[in-house]
C-alpha cells in the first residue's frame, strides 16, 4: 500500500475503513475481538450478580447504601456524549476532513478522561468508607467488574492519544483510516458495556 498516495474528498472511498484487504481483515478481526470481549464481560457480570452484597459475617455494606446515583449519572452522561462525539469524528473521516476528525476525537478523549477521573474519585471515596478490594467477595467482584471497564477506558485513551499525535502531521490515508475506525468501534463497545454496568450494578443495586 502506498502511504504517500494523495486523496481529495472526491477520490476518497466511501468506506475507507475497509478499502484494502488488510483493512478488511482488521475490520472483521476487530469485530470478532469485541465478540470475545463480550464474553469476558459477561463472565464478570455473572460473577458480580452471584456475589452482590455478599461478605463475611457482620458485613456492613450493601448496594443500596453504597452507590450514589447522581455521580454515576454524570459519569454516564460523559461517556454517552463521548460516544456521540466519536460518531461525529467518523462522519468527518468518511468525508476526508482530517482536521475536524482530529478535533472531535480530542473532544472524545477529554470526555473519556473526565469519566475516568470521576471513576477514580468514586473508587477512592468507597475505599475511604472502608469498602476496600479485600473487604469482601462483593467488593472484589465490584472493583473487578467496574475496574476492568475503567481499564478498558484507560487503554482507549492511550490508544486515541497515540493515534492523534502520530498522524497529526500527515493526515488521513487508507492505512490509518482503519485504525481510527476500529478505535471508534472499541469506544462504542466500552459505552455499551457501561450501559449494562449502569443498569445491572447501579440501577438494580439502588432500586432492586
Amino acid at each position, binding site marked *: 500500500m502506498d502511504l504517500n498516495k494523495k486523496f481529495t474528498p472526491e477520490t476518497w472511498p466511501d468506506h475507507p475503513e475497509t478499502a484494502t484487504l488488510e483493512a478488511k481483515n482488521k475490520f472483521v478481526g476487530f469485530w470478532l475481538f469485541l465478540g470475545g470481549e463480550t464474553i469476558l464481560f459477561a463472565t464478570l457480570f455473572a460473577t458480580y450478580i452471584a456475589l452482590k452484597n455478599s461478605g463475611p459475617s457482620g458485613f456492613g455494606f450493601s448496594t443500596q447504601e453504597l452507590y450514589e446515583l447522581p455521580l454515576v449519572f454524570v459519569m454516564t452522561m460523559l461517556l454517552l456524549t463521548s460516544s456521540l462525539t466519536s460518531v461525529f469524528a467518523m462522519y468527518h473521516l468518511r468525508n476526508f476532513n482530517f482536521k475536524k476528525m482530529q478535533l472531535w476525537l480530542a473532544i472524545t478523549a477529554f470526555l473519556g478522561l473526565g469519566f475516568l477521573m470521576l471513576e477514580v474519585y468514586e473508587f477512592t471515596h468507597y475505599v475511604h468508607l472502608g469498602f476496600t478490594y479485600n473487604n469482601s*467477595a462483593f467488593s472484589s467482584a465490584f472493583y473487578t467488574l467496574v475496574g476492568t471497564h475503567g481499564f478498558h477506558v484507560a487503554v482507549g485513551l492511550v490508544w486515541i492519544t497515540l493515534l492523534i499525535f502520530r498522524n497529526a502531521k500527515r493526515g488521513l490515508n487508507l*492505512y490509518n483510516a482503519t485504525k481510527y475506525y476500529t478505535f471508534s468501534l472499541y469506544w462504542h463497545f466500552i459505552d455499551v458495556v457501561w450501559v449494562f454496568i449502569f443498569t445491572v450494578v447501579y440501577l438494580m443495586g439502588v432500586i432492586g
Partner: protein
Amino acid sequence: MSSVAQKKGFGATLWDWLTTVDHKKIGILYFLGGGFFFVVGGIEAMMIRWQLYKPNNDFVSAGLFNDLITMHGTTMIFLAAMPILFGFMNAIVPLQIGARDVAFPFINSLGFWMFFFGGLFLNISWLYGEVPNAGWTSYASLSIASEGHGIDFYAIGLQIAGGGTLMAGINFLVTIINMRAPGMTYMRMPLFTWTTFVASAMILFAFPPLTIGLFFLTFDRMFGGNFFDHTMGGNTIIWEHIFWIFGHPEVYILILPAFGIFSEIFSIFSRKRLFGYPSMVFATVLIGFLGFMVWAHHMFTVGLGPTANAIFAVATMAIAVPTGVKIFNWLLTMWGGSIKVTTPMLYALGFIPSFVMGGVTGVMQGAAPLDYQLHDSYFIVAHFHYVIVGGVVLAILAATHLYWPKMFGTMLNETLGKITFTFFFIGFHMTFLIQHWLGFWGMPRRVWTYMDGQGWNLANLISTCGALLMAIGVIVLVYNVIITSIKNVKVGNDPWGDGRTLEWAIESPPIYYNFPATPLVRGLDTVWIEKMEGNETGLTPAEPIKDIHMPNGSIIPILMSFGLFIAGFGAMFRTEEAWGLPVLIFGLLWTFVSMAARSLQDDTGYYIKKDEILRDLKRKGGQK
C-alpha cells in the same frame, strides 16, 4: 529479500526463525514447541504409571505425584495437543483455501511466542521446586489453599499462553472469512479448514471465561481478593462453572480439528469424495454449538439439583447424534472406495473404534445418576484418555505422517510409521481399557498409591505395561524423524499420489508466497477435479502473474511475549521480594513499549516483483 535458496550462517537462520511471520514457518515452530511439551508431558505420564504399577510403591512422593498429575494434564492439553494442532492449521489451512498467508501474520507470530513463553513459565516451576499441584482443573478451594508458588505458575503461565491461543483463534477466523481464493465458497472448503474454522470460533468464546477465571484465581491468591473464599462471602463453585464453561468447549476445540484431519485422510486414501460432505459440515457446526451447552455435566455431583442435572444430561447425550453422523460418514466414505492402507490411514482406521468407545463411555457419564457412581473414579480417567488419546493424539500422529512432506519436504519412513502405530495403538488400549474396570472396582482417580489386596494390582500392572508400549511407539517415531531428516530425500508436490485439495498442487514445502498466481477453485476437492480432467498441475490460475504483496518479518512479537514472561515473575514475588514490584512494572512497560513501537511504525509490507516470480517458476522447471 531473494527467494533463491542461499546458504545462510547460523545467526542469520536463527534471526530468520525468531522474526518470521510466514505461516509455514510458524506452523513448524508450533509443531516443534508442542512436540517438545508432548515429550515432557509423556515423561510425566510415565512417572505416574511407574508409581502405580504395584501397590504401596514409593517411586515418587505423594506431593510429587500431585505435581505430576497436574502438570501432565495441563501440559498435554494446553502446551502439547493444542499447539501441535495449531501447527498443522498454520501449515495447511492457508494452503487449502488458496491464500498466501494468514490474515494477521504479525499476530500469528505473537500468538506462537506467547504460547511458548507461557509454557516455559509453567515448566520453570519444576526448576523452582514449587509446582502446580491442584489438578489440571485447579478447583478453587484446593488451589487457594495450596502453599508456595505452584498455583501462581499455573495461573500466570496459562494466562500468557491463553492470550496467544485467543489471538490464534481470531486470526484463523478472519483468514478463512476473508482470504479464500476465488471460487472457494464455504461449502467447498476442505473439512480440515471447516473444523479449524469452528474450533477457532469456539476458542473466541471459550477462552475469555478462562482469562477471567485465572484472573480471579490470581487476585484471590496474590492480591487479597475473595471470589472463592466462603468465609468472606465468596463462592467456590464459581470457579467450577467458569472453568468448565471454558473447559468443555476446550475438548471440542481439540477434537474438531482431529475430525478434520481424519476426514481428509479417509477421503484421500479411499480415493473417494467425502461421503455426506454437507452433513459433515452441519455436524461440525452443531457440535461446536452444543459444546457450549453441556459444561455442568462435569459438576453433576456438586448438587445443582435434579432439574439442572437433567437438562445438562440431555444436552450431553444430544452431542452423540452429530458425532454419530460423522462416524457413519467416515465409514461410508470407505465403502466402495479403493482403499490404500498407509500409515495415516492406519491411524484413521484405528481411530474409529477407539473414539467410539470413548464416546459411548461419555454418554454413560452423561446419565447423571450413573455419573454419581463413576465420578472421580478411574472410569473417568479411562474415558477422557479414550477420547483425547484415541481421538486427538491419533489424529496428531496421523497428521504428522500425512503432512510431514508438505511441512518439511521429505517423507517419513512408512515401515517405521506402521511399527509406531502398532506399538502405540496396542499400548493405548492396554493402558486405558483396563482402567474402566479399575473404576468399577472402586479405584479413585488422582491417588498416589493403593493398598495390596484390593484386586487392583494386576490391572495396574497391565496399564503400566501398556504405557511402556506407547513410549516405545513414540521413540520409534522420533527415530523415524531423525533418519528421515538425515537422508533428506526431497519429494514432489503430491507424495501420496492422491491429494485432493490445493495444498497437494504446490511444491513440498511450498515457496514462501505459496501460489505464484492465486488459484481458481472449481469445486469441492478442486485438485482432484483438475487431475480427473487431465490437468497435470492440478491448478487453474485465477489471475495473471503479478506483483505479490507480502508482510515484513518482525522481532517485536518475541519481545512483547518476553515482557509478559518477566512481568509474571514480578507479580509472583511482588510481596516477598524487594525486586518483585519493579520487575512487574518493568515487564509490563517492556511489553507496552514494544506494542507502541509496533503501532507507531508504518509496516505496510513489501512487494515481490513479477520478474522474480517468473524466475522462480523457470527454476522449478517450467512448472506452471
